[in-house]
């Protein structure tokens, strides 16, 4: 055996390199390890070879693949750190040579039973971390020399990287599934606002995990928009993201103001050890007031494209990432968001290019947000790397909210479902405010319209199938709203019912119930104060 000529380390490595790269794409961990063993045993001309990988939970080395000593794997041999041949290699993080097994401390009986005489083992190291041990053995007595030891260590270094990549690759599916499970399956349907979002996992296995977006309603017509990025990777980052996302939702739905939500979130996660940082942009959109409140915890600034078609990077002074300082204070930035505006939120992967100032990426993003009219196409382009010049190494999340301008004459159709009433109310308020109605007028008209709509919902023939329509227009200062359903008008009966109609009459100037095609129309009218005064002033 000793007369055998070894390949040069370069040739040997090239040989290993070839398999490990191919392995990343297709081999399972098991096949990868077997393939590596064959190659290494071939290069060194040994009878046996084995991989033991560190089980991070128990701290033991567990036999994962073996050639010539397959029983090791079948019996699930576990070697505690620091004990026996393999345990010593891992604990001391250095190669160990045993020329004569009979005179050595060997824990694993299989090695003796198989008649192995000489052993050489090296640690598997990734970024200075021990992830396992690899050893080769000879059935005849053999002196492994310095050069063979170096060669095995080189092979092991290469194998360690391949194993780590294969592990992350195997994890990828889990992390991706986790990520996807945490993203909203559908974004809320809110009349007058369009939401579009995309998540694209990192092209590089090792970087998958941690990005998310979220959209949910807060009541009173306000909508929460969230985008965030847990710093880190893999299952760990994915799991933390799930916690941060849920905690944020819970605090927000409890009714805390935006800065309060992020402060509570920070206090909760600042106690996590070791420190994990999360960047978050949390926005509360109030479409009835044409404004939003933004809290930025170290996140990229949002892009706003105004009705003028110009994209702007929002100049906000951000606060620290969540988890950085327990006592951090977070600030709200109030921003006007006119109808016809588009708001774009992204994570790092969408705009960051290594070695380039971030502002350059944000500038390209800003222009793209202004130029692409279709929000779906915009999300797809950003996710595909249109800003960064190719698919990002990182995850990418994009969330777009578009505040649609309301038409002069409102013509809407709604499912006959009580849950539709909130959306109708918020849309109507926006429309009325746009026509100069005062707060009390907005309130009165909204209640009256809602009463007519509630009647339509209550008397729908079958839940879900029927629909009603609400049309509104401004007749020279008088708001005229028509609610039409497909049923016969019926005033609600029962002791504590039937207050709808008196309310409508009390709140509007006129309420007319008219038969319509296959149904009933309720036409209501109310002259706005501003218009009424204008008429008086204009009179001679």
């Amino acid at each position, binding site marked *: 055996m000793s007369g055998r000529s070894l390949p040069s380390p370069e040739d040997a490595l090239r040989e290993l390199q070839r398999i490990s790269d191919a392995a990343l794409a297709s081999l399972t961990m098991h096949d990868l390890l077997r393939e590596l063993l064959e190659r290494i045993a071939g290069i060194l001309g040994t009878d046996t070879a084995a991989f033991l990988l560190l089980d991070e939970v128990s701290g033991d080395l567990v036999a994962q693949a073996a050639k010539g000593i397959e029983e090791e794997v079948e019996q699930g041999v576990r070697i505690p750190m620091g004990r026996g041949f393999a345990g010593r290699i891992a604990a001391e993080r250095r190669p160990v040579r045993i020329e004569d097994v009979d005179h050595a401390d060997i824990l694993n009986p299989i090695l003796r039973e198989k008649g192995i005489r000489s052993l050489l083992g090296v640690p598997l190291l990734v970024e200075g971390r021990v992830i396992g041990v690899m050893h080769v053995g000879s059935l005849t007595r053999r002196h492994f020399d310095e050069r063979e030891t170096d060669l095995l260590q080189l092979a092991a270094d290469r194998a360690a990287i391949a194993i780590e990549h294969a592990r992350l690759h195997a994890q990828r599916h889990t992390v991706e599934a986790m990520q996807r499970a945490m993203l909203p399956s559908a974004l*809320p*349907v*809110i009349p007058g606002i369009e939401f579009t979002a995309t998540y694209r996992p990192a092209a590089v296995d090792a970087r998958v995990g941690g990005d998310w977006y979220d959209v949910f*309603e*807060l*009541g*009173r017509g306000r909508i929460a928009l969230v985008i965030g990025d847990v710093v880190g990777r893999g299952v760990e980052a994915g799991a933390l993201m799930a916690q941060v996302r849920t905690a944020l939702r819970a605090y927000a*739905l409890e*009714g805390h103001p935006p800065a309060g939500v992020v402060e509570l979130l920070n206090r909760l996660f600042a106690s996590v050890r070791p420190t994990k940082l999360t960047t978050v942009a949390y926005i509360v959109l109030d479409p009835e007031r044409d404004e939003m409140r933004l809290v930025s915890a170290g996140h990229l600034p949002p892009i706003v494209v105004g009705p003028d078609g110009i994209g702007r990077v929002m100049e906000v002074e951000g606060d620290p990432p969540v988890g950085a300082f327990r006592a951090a204070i977070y600030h709200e930035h109030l921003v006007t968001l006119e109808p016809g505006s588009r708001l774009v939120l992204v994570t790092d992967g969408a705009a960051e290019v290594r070695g380039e100032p971030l502002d350059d990426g944000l500038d390209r993003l800003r222009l793209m947000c202004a130029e692409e009219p279709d929000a779906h196409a915009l999300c797809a382009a950003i996710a595909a790397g249109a800003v960064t010049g190719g698919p990002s190494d990182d995850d990418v999340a994009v969330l777009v909210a578009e505040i649609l301008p309301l038409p002069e004459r409102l013509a809407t159709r709604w*499912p006959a*479902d*009580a*849950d*539709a*009433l*909130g*959306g109708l*109310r*918020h849309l109507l308020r926006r429309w009325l405010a746009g026509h100069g109605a005062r*707060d*009390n007028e907005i*309130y*009165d008209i*909204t*209640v009256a319209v*809602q*009463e007519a709509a*509630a009647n339509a*919902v209550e008397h729908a023939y079958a839940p879900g199938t029927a629909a009603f329509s609400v049309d509104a227009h401004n007749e020279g200062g008088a708001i005229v709203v028509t609610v039409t359903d497909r049923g016969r008008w019926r005033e609600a009966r029962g*002791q*504590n*019912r039937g*207050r*709808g109609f*008196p*309310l409508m009459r*009390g*709140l509007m100037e006129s309420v007319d119930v008219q038969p319509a095609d296959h149904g009933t129309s309720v036409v209501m009218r109310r002259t706005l104060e501003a218009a009424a005064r204008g008429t008086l002033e204009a009179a001679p």
Partner: protein
Amino acid sequence: MTSSVIHVSEERLDETLMIVLDGELDASSVNDVAVKLRRLVENQAKRLVVDLERVSYLDSAGINLLFAVAGELSARQQQLHLVVVEGSPIERTLRIVGAERAFPVHASREAALAEA
């Protein structure tokens, strides 16, 4: 679809149960509130004050609930008091349906507690 969000919290002051509603009370949220109100009302408190100061929307679905609860309470010799901001749209709405004649409406919590 859009569903209204409303918070219900309670405070006990001697024999008075103060229930604070915060949000919008309409057909989509009224059932949740009804369940919570009736659960709270079942205990021994003699008086029930429902604070509507932080309610920004109230329609007949919510008003009907208040009438129903007031009716249930009076059957047990208890009374429902409301707290409503003076001159608010909610006060106007309640006046239109005659709620102010059916149960005491106060302009502040203090006024409600003094009388309740």
